[in-house]
């Protein structure tokens, strides 16, 4: 993206007191309609491409779903043929594709082979678990990463910068699986003086009733997987923020701002950071988009009932309707979040409006 490293504007560009030029610019619409129309159309085209590729992509996955599902079961050849017919995979590919398109056009994602239930129902049943975990972790990681990133860049080379960046990189390079298991051993089972505080897995316990106990139960289960996820991903926000802000640190307009007698905090917050914000915003929205697809590793180690593991299970069969449905859903989320990010750019950075 061409806007990923914005050149500094003229010295007084982000004026605390708007100048006459800015006043003129403010009169126009914040987001030009043509810009909006273009982005929405782009998103729609992407969505269409997703629907088409979704079908063919998973036909490449090896394996016969009927054979995989009935593996180890007493079954005869007639039953295998009946199942194949029931799933419609005995038809030629073209007519399967026609069925698929007409189904998706009606908003029907089909019925899962293995779970014998509607794909949209399965996605609906798992999506909140994923958004709840990965969404919370993304928000916390972004907040933490950006905050530390700003500080690190502002005092780059300092001991705290080195320590923070180093720690983030160490956590970033840790295998999620390993870190998760360590978390379970230390904080769930307990080691030495540390008591086993949190559950070893899952999102809830059975037989918890009442509003407060239910919320509490959810919270206890969330802590470890969320912490693991944050620890592993916050580095990317930190490093992105640090890198873009570093490019601004020596800029003339900051010197000017200081010369006007502004506090260092204000120089950073009101002048430098807004100019370094775009790449970070892109990253946050992209990650919010992929948040629904979950994190297979974290979901697996903490037995979290999310979409990531549902996808993995579907892939092993392969459960074609479920795979197609999840693919469309994941892609739609990313496309939507990307669209939101693009619509947000002109608000965050006036330069985008004129391009």
């Amino acid at each position: 993206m061409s806007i990923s490293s914005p050149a500094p504007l003229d010295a007084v560009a982000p004026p605390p007191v708007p100048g006459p030029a800015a006043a003129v610019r403010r009169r126009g619409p914040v987001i030009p309609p043509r810009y909006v129309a273009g982005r929405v159309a782009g998103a729609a085209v992407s969505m269409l491409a997703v629907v088409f590729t979704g079908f063919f992509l998973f036909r490449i996955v090896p394996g016969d779903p009927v054979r995989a599902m009935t593996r180890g079961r007493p079954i005869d050849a007639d039953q295998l043929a009946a199942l194949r017919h029931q799933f419609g995979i005995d038809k030629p590919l073209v007519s399967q594709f026609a069925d698929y398109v007409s189904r998706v056009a009606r908003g029907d994602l089909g019925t899962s082979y293995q779970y014998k239930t509607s794909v949209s129902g399965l996605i609906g049943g798992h999506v909140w678990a994923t958004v709840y975990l990965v969404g919370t972790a993304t928000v916390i990681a972004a907040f933490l990463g950006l905050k530390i990133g700003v500080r690190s860049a502002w005092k780059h080379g300092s001991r705290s910068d080195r320590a923070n960046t180093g720690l983030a990189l160490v956590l970033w390079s840790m295998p999620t699986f390993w870190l998760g298991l360590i978390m379970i051993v230390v904080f769930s089972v307990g080691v030495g003086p540390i008591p086993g505080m949190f559950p070893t897995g899952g999102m809830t316990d059975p037989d918890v009733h009442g509003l407060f106990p239910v919320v509490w139960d959810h919270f206890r289960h969330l802590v470890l997987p969320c912490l693991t996820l944050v620890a592993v991903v916050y580095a990317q926000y930190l490093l992105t923020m640090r890198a873009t802000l570093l490019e601004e640190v020596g800029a003339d307009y900051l010197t000017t701002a200081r010369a006007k007698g502004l506090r260092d905090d204000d120089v950073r917050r009101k002048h430098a950071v807004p100019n370094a914000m775009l790449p970070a915003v892109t990253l946050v929205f992209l990650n919010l988009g992929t948040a629904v697809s979950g994190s297979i590793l974290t979901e697996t180690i903490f037995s979290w009932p999310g979409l990531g593991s549902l996808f993995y299970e579907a892939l092993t069969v392969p459960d074609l309707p479920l795979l197609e449905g999840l693919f469309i859903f994941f892609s739609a989320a990313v496309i939507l979040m990307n669209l939101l990010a693009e619509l947000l750019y002109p608000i965050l950075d006036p330069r985008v409006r004129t391009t």
Partner: protein
Amino acid sequence: MPTPTPRRRLLALTAALAGAAALSAPAASAAGRADAVRTGAPSSYIQQAHAAAGDKTLTVATNGSIDSLSPFLAQRALPTAVHRLMYDFLTNYDPKDDHAVDALATKWTTSPDKLTWTFTIRDGMKWSDGQPVTADDVAWTYNLMMTNDDAATANGNFVANFAKVAVDGNNVVITLKQAQSTMLALDIPVVPKHVWESHVADIGKFNNDAQFPVVGDGPFILTGYQKDQYLTLDANPNYWRGKPGFDHLVFKFYKDADAEVEALKKGEVDFVYGLTPAQYDSLKGQSNITTNKAPGKRFYALAVNPGATTKDGQAFGDGNPALQDQQVRQALMYAIDTKTLVSKTLGGYGTVGGGYIPPIFGTYHWDPDSASAYSYNPDKANQMLDAAGYKKGSDGMRTGKDGKPLSFRILGETNRPDDTQNAAYLTEWLKAVGIGATTTIVDQGKLGDTETAGTFDLAFDSWTVNPDPDYVLSIQQCDMRPKAAGKSFAGDDFICDKDYDALYQKQITEYDPAARADDVKQMEQKLYSDAYINVLYYANALEAYRSDVIGSWDKQPQPEGAYWGQDGYWAFWSAKPAGTTTAADGSTVPAAKKSDSSNTGLVIGIVAVVIVVLGGGAFLLRKRRSTTAEERE
């Protein structure tokens, strides 16, 4: 003008908390759905059961998954096991030695022509909603599977040979198309007709998870299910064989086996199964944990491509023609050191392979005598290969009949860790007798595709065997080969041996158990000398449980058997809670409720976290103020 920092902070914090609450609310409400259904249930049975204090719960960790809770649809091992607990079957298998014992049926007779079986249904049994269990329920269940393709999804194979199922008073009369010796091994859950009648229209999509408790007649009653989270059952107080010892049975779903082991150590779950040797060893000797090593029901074999053919005998695929020579196949087996595989790959937790039916099924297991057994003997293998005409070159490697170096492709599966390790050993041993080898380890789907196409030489193969061995025997018949080249088939390895098929037909019509067992053993002997399916070993089933929760429970078979994967409900039905635990000083104290200690720990932990966060925050704030002040100077 200085920014009012603390207030902004507060605002940001409030916003963040509100966001998290908003995110967790739908999750909480989604989780609450099952409860909503429960409270809407007609009976107040659940609330009563949960209100009872001092109830004993047995929690099982499982990494299985549930495809459906409908007995007509479920194909995976876990739901099949759960159905055993929910519904009684016509007959059951004895916990000591697996012979057929009464369940729904109290007695059975056969007609002289062997085609009619009459089962007498137990008097006075009731479904959990109070309705009587009748012969009509049995006939209705079977008939539905015979007439409705969707209803036949899971267990259709059991009724494929049924001509007619009728009710005669208290009896169910089954007429067969041809004699069938497996009639006491009909693993079909019988469902209540009065409940299921209304679901016939959508039987292919009804998953039996819409309303709890689910009406059943087994030792346990299904009371709740959250996919990928937990499944809960309550003891059936009116079960005819007696009420189970535990009041509640909970299955907790884990996706990672190591996490299961940690949960057992902590006491969050009371039973884990399917352990790896390393996990099993790590649990040995831990306080309050009892480990169990049982002979497994699964055989692990090396399948040889016999030259893939269709039912009509049309050849396809590209299996190495050298393997169509029995002498070469047998030589391979002499070249393989199965003892090393057991001690290295299984860490000693297993038995060296012999007959096709694992030794846990004593009635049917056959072992070769020492003269005919393929005991590790590379010299003999070399001699046999020489005699078969595969001469060694100057580099010590043999040449095939086509003039090219003799080399086999070994096919294995990624999510079966044994395969990778065994393939490495095999490659070495083959090389020692002058045969080259290449290994391909692929995922389950690709493996299936390659086998179906017949484009392999050697493949690892594994099956779980039932107390009645009919099914695993049936898959090696000529008729189980594919209809057309490269099409999926119900069989296993394209084997076609007319003598074997004749023996199969003999045993399926033999109603005398001892005579049938003899036939089965002859079939095993045939498979062994044919050397197409070569059993390398039977791995042990490794499991562990909390002895401070479970006082006693029954294995199957006895004395050496497993708790999980039984044919029947014996373990969970017979499990008795541990009454007391022994304290460190040797005195006995009542078993503490596990959650108490973890709650105390949690409170301590939360307090610690709050102190750290507040302390840290205060420190940062002070630091920040001081810098600002400095810079203002």
